């Protein structure tokens, strides 16, 4: 009976650190690898805003790519402008409000981002529209101003220069503020316009 409760001789508990260390190093390796992979390859969704834009300035984004450009017009802020101008409207401004609504409707319809080839017609139309909205806001003391931001992807210099050349031919359109930014190929646009604003 006494023997049953006797302790076993202390042989010394040997703990091997190998499994712990190997798992730890594996985790570290995987973690750093994933981080590197993520930062280098994962496409990043972006939205461009004007660096010095005050609250009332709104960006009309044009993303230049190798074979065309993608126009991302502001919609939400224009809808707010439309609501404001509707609440303050009188009979004279009715036709102007309709124009804003038309622009808004057109912009909503083109929400599916499509690649356009720059030509005199589409570029002047975009800038005329922006200029009209800016003039309207100024005349009615509304805090709203659109400006254009160009996102330049690799190999898209041709498209950008084509757009600028069209603008240079139309000095009346040069009143719109412009900014441009170099974008890496892994910077992607958000696929839905509502997210952009």
């Amino acid at each position, binding site marked *: 009976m006494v023997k049953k409760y006797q302790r076993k001789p202390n042989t010394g508990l040997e703990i091997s650190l*190998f*499994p712990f260390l*190997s*798992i730890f190093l*594996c*985790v570290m390796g*995987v*973690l750093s690898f*994933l981080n590197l992979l*993520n930062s280098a390859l*994962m496409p*990043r*969704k*972006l*939205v*461009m*805003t*004007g*660096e*010095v*834009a005050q609250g009332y300035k709104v*960006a009309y984004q044009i993303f230049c790519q*190798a074979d065309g450009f993608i126009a991302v017009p502001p919609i939400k802020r224009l809808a707010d402008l439309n609501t404001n101008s509707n609440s303050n409207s009188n009979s004279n401004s009715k036709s102007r409000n309709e124009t804003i609504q038309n622009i808004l409707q057109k912009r909503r319809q083109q929400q599916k981002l499509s690649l356009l080839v720059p030509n005199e017609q589409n570029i002047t139309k975009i800038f005329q529209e922006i200029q009209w909205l800016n003039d309207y806001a100024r005349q009615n003391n509304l805090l709203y101003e659109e*400006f254009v*931001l160009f996102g*330049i992807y*690799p*190999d*898209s*210099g*041709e498209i*950008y*220069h084509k757009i600028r050349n069209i603008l240079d031919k139309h000095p009346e359109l040069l009143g719109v*503020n*412009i*900014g*441009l*930014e*170099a*974008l*890496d*190929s892994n*910077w992607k646009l*958000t696929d839905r316009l509502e*997210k*952009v604003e």
Partner: protein
Amino acid sequence: MKLDLININSLTDIISNSVGILILFAVLNIVYEGGKVYKLEVPLEYESSLIPAFFLCKDNAIVFLEPEIIFINAILQANKKSYHKQDIFSLDYMDIKGQIVEDYALLLHANDTSSWSKTIDDSQISDALDRLDSKKQFAFFFVYDDSQNNGFEIYRQARQYLKQRHVKSGWQPVNKNHPASICFWGDVPACNRYFPSRGG
């Protein structure tokens, strides 16, 4: 007879742990990155009386275009008897070639960038950037836009460096079809106009 079997418990443990963590992080990354939208603040161009100092960026290398050297060398080349209009000639400066266009602009063609500065910390370029007087000058970057050897990254670094020093900067993409061009006179309508950017 006692057999010396290899115990694969530890190995299985390591592999299953790694795979599990890999999946977990992949899912976390997708969830986190998928919904994240980066806000890029872009400076706006404006007309200014500041004088441009030109830089060329290509293949993630940068070079300051010393106007005196470039223009004197271009004039020397153009005065040679063998010179023909639209000839592309060596400017004897940082492996850059020049081409005079209709007596109003000098086009710059860059091929080999091995002699250019690869980082902003290089004294060759940092000295040029430090010399810019923020009250009189701004930096204008001609940035090659080729997908393989563009100068976007080094341009952004230089712009950031200048921003910290309150020096304005502007840029335009260039390539083989639209090379960098410096006008002899600013009032020629066909000439490029160089704008700095607010806040940039």
